[in-house]
């Protein structure tokens, strides 16, 4: 174990290591090459690999992702950046009608190995067009994988896994996690896609968290410990395909489930998990499945309103106590 590495450099190192390992990997997007990324995540890539492999494009999100789909179908492994996840709405066509369908639709004549990185900026007062976490739009697309790293270690491991995966992968990275630090394991490692992590074992209730809500969940677990409450904390890591077996096993032990995600509750990924658990593990539940998530409105730039909107440790603690009360 070396010195601690920041989340954003963990992503950077993952991309660089994969580009050294595999000459078909390249990065593409707005300001990713020469400027090193608007938040510095791709710093140094152009210097090491040259402009053919670190490509700056015009502002054309749909075509950036469309280019990736065509290039991937033609043998390359693109890693694109969408600066703020709100802008991924411009890429829904290319992700849904094209990338997610091409392999199946063409009878397996192609594979589409591509990674699209999208950054969420909730909590910065960035307002309605820059703050959204839109994973639920994509979680239901067969043929597309969606991963949401939560620590520097899994940020690196999931990026490597995503680049090596032969399918399109949407990689959602939270701006507020960029400065988290952790020591990396030695050598080459991946975090497998499609597997949850049991972060803390427990017995009283299962908390399922995703993305940057891990930080809030860890705070909540500490606070609940003071009241003698021991939750089992599961980090999804992959939103699609969901690792439901780990969740069922936990619910069979704890008999209560609460899901926390930054995105709004209505039609969020928590809804899918809740539906599956009540369908497949009903007899093990002592309480309805609950969700801690954003309300059915828009995110404000105004700090007081934004803070109310975003889920946090306090809201999770309150929900758990209600469920155990």
């Amino acid at each position, binding site marked *: 174990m070396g010195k601690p590495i920041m989340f954003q450099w963990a992503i950077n190192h993952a991309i660089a290591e994969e580009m050294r390992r595999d000459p078909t990997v*390249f990065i593409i997007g707005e300001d990713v090459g020469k400027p090193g990324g608007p938040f510095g995540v791709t710093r140094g890539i152009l210097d090491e690999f040259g402009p053919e492999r670190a490509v700056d494009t015009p502002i054309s999100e749909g075509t950036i992702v469309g280019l990736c789909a065509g290039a991937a179908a*033609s043998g390359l492994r693109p890693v694109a950046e969408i600066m703020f996840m709100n802008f991924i709405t411009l890429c829904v066509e290319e992700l849904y009608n*094209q990338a997610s369908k091409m*392999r199946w*639709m*063409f009878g397996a004549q192609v594979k589409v190995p591509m990674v699209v990185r999208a950054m969420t900026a909730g909590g910065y007062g960035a307002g309605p067009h820059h703050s959204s976490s839109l994973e639920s739009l994509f979680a239901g697309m067969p*043929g597309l994988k969606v991963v949401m790293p939560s620590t520097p270690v899994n940020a690196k491991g999931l990026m490597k896994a995503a680049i090596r995966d032969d*399918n399109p992968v949407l990689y959602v990275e939270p701006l507020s996690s960029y400065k988290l630090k952790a020591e990396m394991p030695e050598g080459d490692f991946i975090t497998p896609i499609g597997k949850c992590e049991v972060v803390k074992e427990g017995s009283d209730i299962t908390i399922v968290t995703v993305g940057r809500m891990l930080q809030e969940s860890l705070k909540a677990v500490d606070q609940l410990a003071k009241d003698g409450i021991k939750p089992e904390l599961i980090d999804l890591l992959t939103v699609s395909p969901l690792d439901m077996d780990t969740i069922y096993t936990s619910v069979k032990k704890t008999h209560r489930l609460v899901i926390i995600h930054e995105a709004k509750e209505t039609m969020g990924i928590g809804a899918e998990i809740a539906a599956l658990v009540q369908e497949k593990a009903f007899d093990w539940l002592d309480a309805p499945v609950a969700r801690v998530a954003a309300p059915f409105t828009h995110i404000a730039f105004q700090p007081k309103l934004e803070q109310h909107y975003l889920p946090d440790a306090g809201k999770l603690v309150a929900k758990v106590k209600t469920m155990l009360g």
Partner: protein
Amino acid sequence: MKISKDTKIDLFTRMVKVRTFEDDTNKIFMAGKEMPGFLHLSQGEDAMAAGTCANLRMDDAIYTTHRGHGCIIAKGADLKPMMAELFGRIDGCCKGRAGSMHFADVKTGCMGSNGVVGEGMRLAVGTAFAQKYNKTDNVTAVFFGEGASGTGSFHESFNMAATLKLPVIFVCSINLYAQMTHKSVHIAIDDMAERAAGYGAPGVTFDGNDVEVVYEEVAKAVKHCRAGKGPYLVEGKTYRHYGHYIGDPCNYRPAGELEEWMKKDPVVLYEKKLLKEGVLDAKGVQQIKDECKRLVDEAVEYARKSPQPEIEELYKDIFA
């Protein structure tokens, strides 16, 4: 440009093959029992398909539209899996899953047809990117019409191909209609290739029903792209003999317009020209027509013999 006798016969053969396939598919579809879904046929646009694809190597790529049979056939795809795909059978090129609007035949460079107007252009930019990245002199041709020329996809793709200097030939067939509305609803200028200069690339407009003109103009575009000079826009004026889809009553076409364009049928005109020039005699023409008919008949028989896909096929190949 001097076109050799062999090339002329090749151009004619490609067009006859396209026309025969489209005409026979039309008949089978209209009989109502064997081909599910929708059909968008390309009779009348045969010269654009043949003249473009005759310039391309097998390992060059094309991206085609919902009206893409002609281009895929002209590129050299085997007719049997194409026909089986139209019948929705397991031996179809897409295992019977995709149908007419979503054909692909990757081994002959046919990277995919698209059911979403204009979307092939973004994908074409990606394949061209890969061709340049791998330091080949391969090129990608993407077909589209005046309707697609209004999409964000066209503008973004052409701009990105120009800024990144990618080997994409944008092949626009102006057939006067986008679905049911006239060209004038879709573009404010007469010759849309004029736009190319605004993006920093060459553009040219020509008679899309003269297969030799198409061939010569696309040859220039291919040469430009193989030399790494960036994209090129070619625009051929042409016409589709049938409606947007088979079954379309075409109420939006003024009386007499179809008849005028039928006088400029590219296949009929070229046959006359080759006979007049002595490139082919009547017997030679008939031999080509008979051989194309034989290939189409063989494809239909292949399709009819192929089984329907099993239900399990729905769940295969979702992920690699």
